[in-house]
Every structure is written in structure tokens, then in C-alpha cells.
């Protein structure tokens, strides 16, 4: 049943400092509210349990894409539309652009944000596999300061993450070390547009002197969190890209993910498709 909207508060601070002060003054009382593409769905279904929200949508401090010699840094409120139209991201981080283009339709892409996709913490989110494969780091800010941490490890369990009640996700940055790599992003869903993934794989790798290097692989919808598959990477790193290597990587991947049956797919299907995507990725690297 639809929620009773007068029960909900959505307050609009005039600056980031004001938003952070509010989060610190009443810890746990206020939660951030960005583009609303996830939270409003829960509201309409009458399943939005929290009542008080801070509207961060208009905070300019959390917008913008900055390119330096070493990194591309994105404000947490960067929308999927912003991501797709940025030339630097198109050139060096194409999987992030592809993830953005395959998330919802245009009307969603105009409102959905990268930061929201991270802290909504869905294991089926589309951009986190790409962010993990690109070795992203995230910045959490509070009234007491700021800290950067690797995105890998940020999610600790289903909908659990290393963020305090007084902290906001402010920025995401990716190291510019992808030149010469093969980028492979594939989302498998029921329908090409709008669908939530059954399985999603994002991966990069290079082949140097006949050996696999710089390999990073992440999958969505196959575990309680979006997972970086470090054991599968280890099964590939330094090896010659042949049938034996592909077979052993697939075997390792089977142990590293834990897909389940749910409304969108089955564990068996997800496991098979995950292995197929890994194989397809490795064929692409070899080609």
C-alpha cells in the first residue's frame, strides 16, 4: 500500500557543511536522499521504513567530473547521463559508460546517481562491477573530515557497508591505468532496456609477452554483494591464455561466487552464465 507522505520529512540544506552538521547533530535520524530512483519506489510501495531524509540533490559540492594526470574523479551526484556524455570516461573507462547506458531508461539515467548506486548497496547494481574492475576508491566526508578508501571491501554483506551515520559518500575516483587493456562489460537481463540484471560481469585485462596481466574481474547478482573475484584473477595472472587456463579460471569462479534462486533467475542459470561471460571475456582478450 502507498505510504502516507505527510509522515515523511525531506529537508533541503543550503550547503554540504550544513548537511554534514545535521548528520552529526542527530546521528542516524537523517539519511541522504539523492535522485530518488530507488527510494521513491519503496515510498510508493509503502516500504520506505526511514522517515527523515536530507535532500542532497542540490549540493553543488557533490557534482562535477575532474580529470587529473593520475585519476578521473566523479562527484557522488554524477548522473548516469553525465557519465555517458563525458569524453574522458568514454575513452578510458568505457565499461562505466556502458553500465550507465544500461541502467533504466533515459528518464532514470537523468536522475540516478553513481553515489546512489553505491550506497543503495544492491547486489544487482550495474555500475559497481565496473567500478570494482577499475579499482575505484571512494571518499567519505563528515563534519570531522574526509577519508578515502578502496571501493573493494566497502560492502561487507547484503546492504551492509563501511559508512558511519554522520558520513556522506562525496566522490569516486578511478586510476588512469586502463590504456591498452581489453574492457569487457556485459549485463544479462530479461529485456535489453530497464531490466535488472540476472548476471553482470565487468572485467579488464592485458596480454603482455604472451601472459595475462592487469586482470580485474567483478560480477553483480551472483552473491550478497557485488564481488571482485580475486581468486579467479589469480588463476589467470601470469598464465598463457589457452583452453586449460580458461577452464581452470571457470572452475575457480564457480567456487568464488554464490548465486541464488530468486524472482529474476536461478542459481544454476546464473552460475552457467557467469562462466560463459568469463569465457567470452577471455576470448575477447585473446582476439
Amino acid at each position, binding site marked *: 500500500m502507498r505510504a502516507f507522505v505527510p509522515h515523511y520529512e*525531506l529537508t533541503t540544506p543550503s550547503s554540504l557543511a550544513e548537511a554534514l552538521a545535521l548528520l552529526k547533530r542527530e546521528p542516524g535520524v537523517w539519511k541522504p536522499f539523492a535522485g530518488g530512483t530507488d527510494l*521513491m519506489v519503496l515510498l510508493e510501495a509503502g516500504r520506505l521504513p526511514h522517515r527523515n531524509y536530507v535532500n542532497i540533490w542540490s549540493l553543488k559540492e557533490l557534482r562535477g567530473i575532474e580529470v587529473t594526470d593520475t585519476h578521473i574523479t566523479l562527484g557522488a551526484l554524477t548522473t548516469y547521463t553525465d557519465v555517458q556524455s563525458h569524453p574522458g570516461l568514454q575513452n578510458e573507462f568505457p565499461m562505466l559508460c556502458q553500465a550507465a547506458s544500461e541502467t*533504466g531508461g533515459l528518464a532514470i539515467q537523468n536522475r540516478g546517481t553513481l553515489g546512489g548506486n553505491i550506497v543503495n548497496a544492491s547486489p544487482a547494481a550495474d555500475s559497481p562491477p565496473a567500478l570494482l574492475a577499475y579499482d575505484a576508491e571512494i571518499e567519505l566526508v563528515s563534519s570531522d573530515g574526509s577519508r578515502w578508501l578502496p571501493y573493494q571491501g566497502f560492502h561487507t554483506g547484503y546492504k551492509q557497508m563501511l559508512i558511519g551515520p554522520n558520513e556522506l559518500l562525496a566522490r569516486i575516483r578511478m586510476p588512469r591505468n586502463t590504456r591498452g587493456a581489453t574492457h569487457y562489460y556485459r549485463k544479462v537481463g530479461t529485456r535489453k532496456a530497464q531490466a535488472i540484471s540476472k548476471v553482470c560481469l565487468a572485467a579488464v585485462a592485458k596480454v603482455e609477452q604472451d601472459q595475462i596481466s592487469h586482470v580485474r574481474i567483478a560480477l553483480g547478482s551472483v552473491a550478497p554483494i557485488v564481488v571482485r573475484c580475486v581468486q579467479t584473477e589469480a588463476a589467470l595472472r601470469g598464465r598463457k591464455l589457452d583452453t586449460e587456463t580458461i577452464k581452470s579460471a571457470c572452475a575457480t569462479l564457480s567456487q568464488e561466487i554464490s548465486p541464488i534462486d530468486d524472482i529474476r533467475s536461478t542459481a544454476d542459470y546464473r552460475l552457467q552464465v557467469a562462466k560463459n561471460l568469463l569465457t567470452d571475456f577471455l576470448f575477447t582478450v585473446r582476439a
Partner: protein
Amino acid sequence: MQITININGESRTIDTFPMSRLLDVLREQLHLTGTKEGCGEGECGACTVFLDGQIVNSCLVPVAQVNGSEIATIEGIAHNDQLHAVQQAFIDHGGAQCGICTPGMVLAAVDLLNRNPEPSEADIRTGLAGNLCRCTGYMKIFESVVRAYQK
């Protein structure tokens, strides 16, 4: 709370709750019932409106976030008595069946042609991907969009 918006070129101030859906404010307070509710969860695009020049699903926008914004709904797409080329094409080529998806489809098509006056077939499919037609009249909708930009 009070919010002021520019709606189809006219400034309006409304008393509302911050978490009210823009869709409900448009339909129930401003009586602009051309914007439809389909799924209420951002899947179908029936509630599409322009918000500061970009299309959004108005069912997913809390009204506190549109204070001071410019909004255009299907009621604001025609100029006086002159229908927009997309609207005329939908009439001429059977782009509307039951009509529930039509306002959203028209706005998504107007948005597409604003950004890309000569879209490819793939561009049209991408541009309309967020809008569902339960009558499944997609080919006529598609054809209407093609005819609209050929005019």
C-alpha cells in the same frame, strides 16, 4: 511546505508535503491530468515530464526537489493551437491506441528530437526504451517518430 515552480511557462506556488510525488502534485493540485500514472515505480514512463529540460519519471521525484524549477508537461508541448510535429505524427500514423502511454511517449520523442534531430533507428529505440505501451503498438509509435522528424 510551499514551493514555487514554473509549469508550462506559468509560475505557480503550491502548499504541499516535501515527499509528495511530483506526479500527484501535477495531477491533483494543478489538475494537469495529461501526465499519467502507470506503474508508479519508474518502469513504464507514462508519468514522463520535462524537469529543467531533461525528461524524468514524475512518480520518482519528490516535490521538495523541484522548488524553483521549470517543468513542462504534455499540456505545454503544443504552441497555442499548433500541435508539436510529434503529436501530429502520432495522430496521422496511429501512434496512440488506448492513450495511457501516449503523453510519455510523445515527451520522450520530443526530448529525443531536441537532442538529436535526425535519429537513427537505434537512437529511437534507445530514446523510447523507458516507455512501455501495454497495447504493444510499438511499430506505429516508432513510425510516428520517424515521420515527425522527416517533416
